[in-house]
């Protein structure tokens, strides 16, 4: 009975209810859209480093991530790789070997990072070596002449282009001076200037020979379905690796990129702030609506009280009105919000004509508006909206329940 009365009361001043509803629905749906875009931006940033270099999980010797020492390598073991690939959530694995040394063309030599990869395996984890501006991809078969892909910045600093021969020099694992010629097969651009200025990709087997590290790897880079699941998968894999007694360690992207993890963790706070700001305004609007509605109905509420409705029931009735308003807003707002997010997810807005990529927290923010779905981005605005409606209904409801029936009835309608 209270419910039907509350619903009818909402329908009473239809225009006011609709206006309030508009405010709540718009704020809820725009909030969902904005958070989706925020998440999309963060996903872009995260992807710019994990998808363009690190991968989501990295298996290596425990010292390697910090020291990056040539000698902290481990022997390639296909069984371990197969076991990792079978693990749920893991979608790709790339074995890698890394060397630091000097690369030169005709001018001064430049310090570079040489990453030895198997191109097809790497493609299952990152886009390294695929975002080419010139030339072609590394051939997994490997020709007679060792070939290299270099970053755009590196190419221009070396003054070299596709087809040119570069000399590479480093210290091999046996102390000898490893040096060889590499022909440039392609030039890539990841959008991250640091990487484009100093990264070169070479075939894994060639690098092993040069470094005198047969069968050795420095790391296994893994890709997972959902980047946010990476820490959980890492924990499970840690147990698995410990059981296998491999003395290998595993890091997730959050550990590899602490600033990135922080930026993403901060999102929870930013999201809360955004929700609070937007909903404070909306909440005040609802509060106003309900106060007006209670004040207008003073006499009627007096009658209800006179007829024997308890103050608690009166309060419940007004709260129910707020709850219904909240539920309707929630349903409409969430549906519209999801629809907008879906549109922004599929279509998006390209901003590259106006904005250049921005580097943030070690990643690159792509110049586009693009939304991703995240449960919390929908759940939180929806549930908090309901809370805001109830809170905004609470004070008018309390006021209504405290009315003096004698005075209230005398009030002119």
């Amino acid at each position, binding site marked *: 009975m209270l419910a039907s009365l509350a619903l009818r009361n909402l329908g*009473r001043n239809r225009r006011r209810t609709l206006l309030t509803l508009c405010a709540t629905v718009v704020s809820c749906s725009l909030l969902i859209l904005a958070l989706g875009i925020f998440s999309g931006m963060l996903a872009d940033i995260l992807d710019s480093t994990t998808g363009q270099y690190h991968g989501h999980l990295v298996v290596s010797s425990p010292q390697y991530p910090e020291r990056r020492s040539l000698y902290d390598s481990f022997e390639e073991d296909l069984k371990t790789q197969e076991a990792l690939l079978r693990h749920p959530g893991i979608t790709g694995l790339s074995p890698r070997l890394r060397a630091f040394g000097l690369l030169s063309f005709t001018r001064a030599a430049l310090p570079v990072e040489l990453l030895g990869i198997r191109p097809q395996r790497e493609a299952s984890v990152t886009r390294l070596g695929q975002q080419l501006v010139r030339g072609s991809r590394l051939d997994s078969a490997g020709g007679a002449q060792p070939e290299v892909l270099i970053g755009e910045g590196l190419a221009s600093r070396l003054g070299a282009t596709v087809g040119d021969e570069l000399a590479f020099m480093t210290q091999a694992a046996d102390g000898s001076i490893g040096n060889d010629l590499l022909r440039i097969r392609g030039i890539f651009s990841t959008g991250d200037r640091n990487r484009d200025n100093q990264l070169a990709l070479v075939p894994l087997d060639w690098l092993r020979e040069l470094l005198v590290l047969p069968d050795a790897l420095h790391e296994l880079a893994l890709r997972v379905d959902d980047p946010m699941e990476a820490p959980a998968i890492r924990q499970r894999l840690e147990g698995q690796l410990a059981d296998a007694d491999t003395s290998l360690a595993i890091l997730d992207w959050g550990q590899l990129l602490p600033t990135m993890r922080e930026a993403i963790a901060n999102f929870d706070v930013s999201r809360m702030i955004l929700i609070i700001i937007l909903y404070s305004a909306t909440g005040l609007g609802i509060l106003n609506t309900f106060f007006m509605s209670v004040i207008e109905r003073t*006499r009627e509420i007096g009658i*209800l009280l006179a*007829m*024997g409705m*308890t103050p608690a029931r009166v309060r419940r009735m007004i709260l129910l009105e707020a709850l219904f308003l909240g539920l309707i807003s929630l349903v409409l707002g969430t549906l519209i919000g999801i629809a907008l997010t879906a549109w922004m997810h599929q279509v998006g807005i390209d901003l590259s004509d106006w904005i250049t990529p921005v580097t943030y927290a070690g990643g690159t923010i792509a110049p586009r508006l693009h939304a991703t779905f995240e449960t919390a981005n929908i759940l939180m605005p929806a549930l908090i909206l309901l809370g805001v409606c109830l809170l905004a209904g609470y004070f008018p409801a309390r006021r209504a329940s405290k009315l*003096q029936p004698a005075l209230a009835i005398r009030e002119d309608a």
Partner: protein
Amino acid sequence: MIHLENVSKIYRTGNREVAALLDFSLDVARGEFSVLAGPSGSGKTTVLNLIGCLDQSTRGRIEVAGMDVSRRTVTQLASFRLAHIGFIFQSYNLIPVLSAQENAEFTLMLRGVPKAKRQARIQELFERLGIAGLENRKPGDLSGGQQQRVAIARAMAAKPNLILADEPTANLDSKTSEDLLELMRELNEEQQITFLFSSHDPMIIGCARRVIELKDGHLASDSKDSAA
């Protein structure tokens, strides 16, 4: 049924005190059909509000249906009203979003009476009050007389011991007033419900068995006394 003993109601406006009622005593027996008469501002409505537990006295003792209602919580008073008292107002005061039927059965719903029983009761009352067939109309679609009949049905629905009617005919034409008054008399006699009016309508005063006249918050005269 009603026992008022030296009851005063003093309103404070700023630092001025206005006594709406001063040392007022009254006894109304069960089944009476009485009217509180007097010019406006004489304290009629105050007496009705105090008896109806819509307001609290400043001083004095009030008993209604055998219960001392002067120091009770608002929730207790609400339950008390629900159990014992029906109200009829000058301007009907039906709930505009509810149909005639829903308005009338409101107190039954508050009491948790099952639907079938409610409907039977309302059916009976509407027929008795001559508004059968209007159950689904909203108050806005009813004439003043019809609205007041619904209001009477509402007041009667839960079979209260006492019905308080504040100027029930003031907004109605004399024909309708007469009909309604007649109806209330019959209900009073049939069901031994105590009726207490406040009115300066000579028709009501003429029809009442007892006229209690107030003036400036005092009892001016009581026809019961003069009869005695």
